[in-house]
């Protein structure tokens, strides 16, 4: 079943992110490749100094990313509500087995999680911007 998280939606999200400074200082240090998985749809956001410079749809044999945030479409639908309901408002909430006992709605955070922790504030801010798309 098609979801709203297609190429056009991600392009709009990219536009929202690039229209503003993520944070005054450390957002400018936000450089990484972040995979966001909306169900079966995967996008690698190439982020340089707080701006999304390129979006790659789908993975190929040459795809490189630092970390991935994957969740079912239904979980992202909850997250992108304004305001999001309890346990769907934050990546650590969405990946928590206490709040999401089954894998069917739980977020998976994988890859180099050090990068996630290093840029947690910037990641949170750009994910919050999905509610402005």
């Amino acid at each position, binding site marked *: 079943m098609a979801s709203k998280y297609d190429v056009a939606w991600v392009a709009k999200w990219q536009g929202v992110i690039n229209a503003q400074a993520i944070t005054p200082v450390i957002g400018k240090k936000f450089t990484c490749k972040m995979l966001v998985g909306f169900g079966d749809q995967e996008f690698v956001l190439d982020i340089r100094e707080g701006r999304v410079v390129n979006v790659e749809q789908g993975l190929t044999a040459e795809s490189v990313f630092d970390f991935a945030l994957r969740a079912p479409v239904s979980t992202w639908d909850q997250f992108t509500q304004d305001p999001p309901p309890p346990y769907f408002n934050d990546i650590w909430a969405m990946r928590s087995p206490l709040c999401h006992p089954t894998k069917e709605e739980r977020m998976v955070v994988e890859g180099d999680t050090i990068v996630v*922790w290093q840029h947690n504030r910037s990641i949170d801010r750009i994910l919050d911007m999905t509610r402005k798309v």
Partner: protein
Amino acid sequence: MAARQDPNVGHYVYVPFEGREYRIYYEENGSGIPLVCLHTAGTDGREYRHQIADAEIAKKFRVIAFDLPSHGKSNPPAGWDKEEYILTSAFYAGFTKAFCEALDLQKPVVMGSSMGGNVCLDLAYLYPTTFRALIAIEGCDYSPGWFLDILQDPRIHSEVCANSVFGLMAPQSPWDYRMETWWYYAQGGPGIFRGDLYYYSIDHDFREKIKKIDGKTPIYFITGEYDFACTAAMSEATAKKIPNAEFTLMEGIGHFPMSENPVNFKSYLMPVLNKIS
């Protein structure tokens, strides 16, 4: 013209405990029943600035919030740089009682949040006749999963402590208050949040001992619906296991109700305080 001021007044008291003397900072306002406020892991008593300054609460309660050793304005003990900071149940419960004794408080109420909520179980179990009542905010008998080495990692800026808890607050809570809470966490001493979380997720396990809490001290569990560290279900299940305990769900609020949304929090706190007074 003199500028306006908060009524909160700060002091230092020397608390003897286990062979050491700790110089402890606390703030207070009000008169009446002592209401001792315990801050959450990794931060300090600033979390309670609104409740301390509240004129309505101050009419019946002497509201006191202290900083544990190595938190806020309470310095760590000498030799701290040669030790790994780890908070244990025995220290936390014992020190809380020692602080109350240092101020000669008679039958105080203890109100704690998060790890401060959890230690209410220790206080009820160890000292069943010492406290008038216990208010366990975001507390439960077992809260696993938070003892994280990442919170003291040289590769990561110390604001990781603040970022790790930001999502525990409800999106409905005012942004400025959420960022103020974030600020407190960003200012914690190195390794302190991690060390406190040893108590919170490892040493604190009341799943069996809870049967031994005799109910002499009433315990009020109040938990925010956005809390994913101690969910409302966890608090409610804990309350059901203890005689003379009750549970209240706080809607539209998260893990730091007293600082992230003091107005919303007060609507839930006042009925509890009115029962106690």
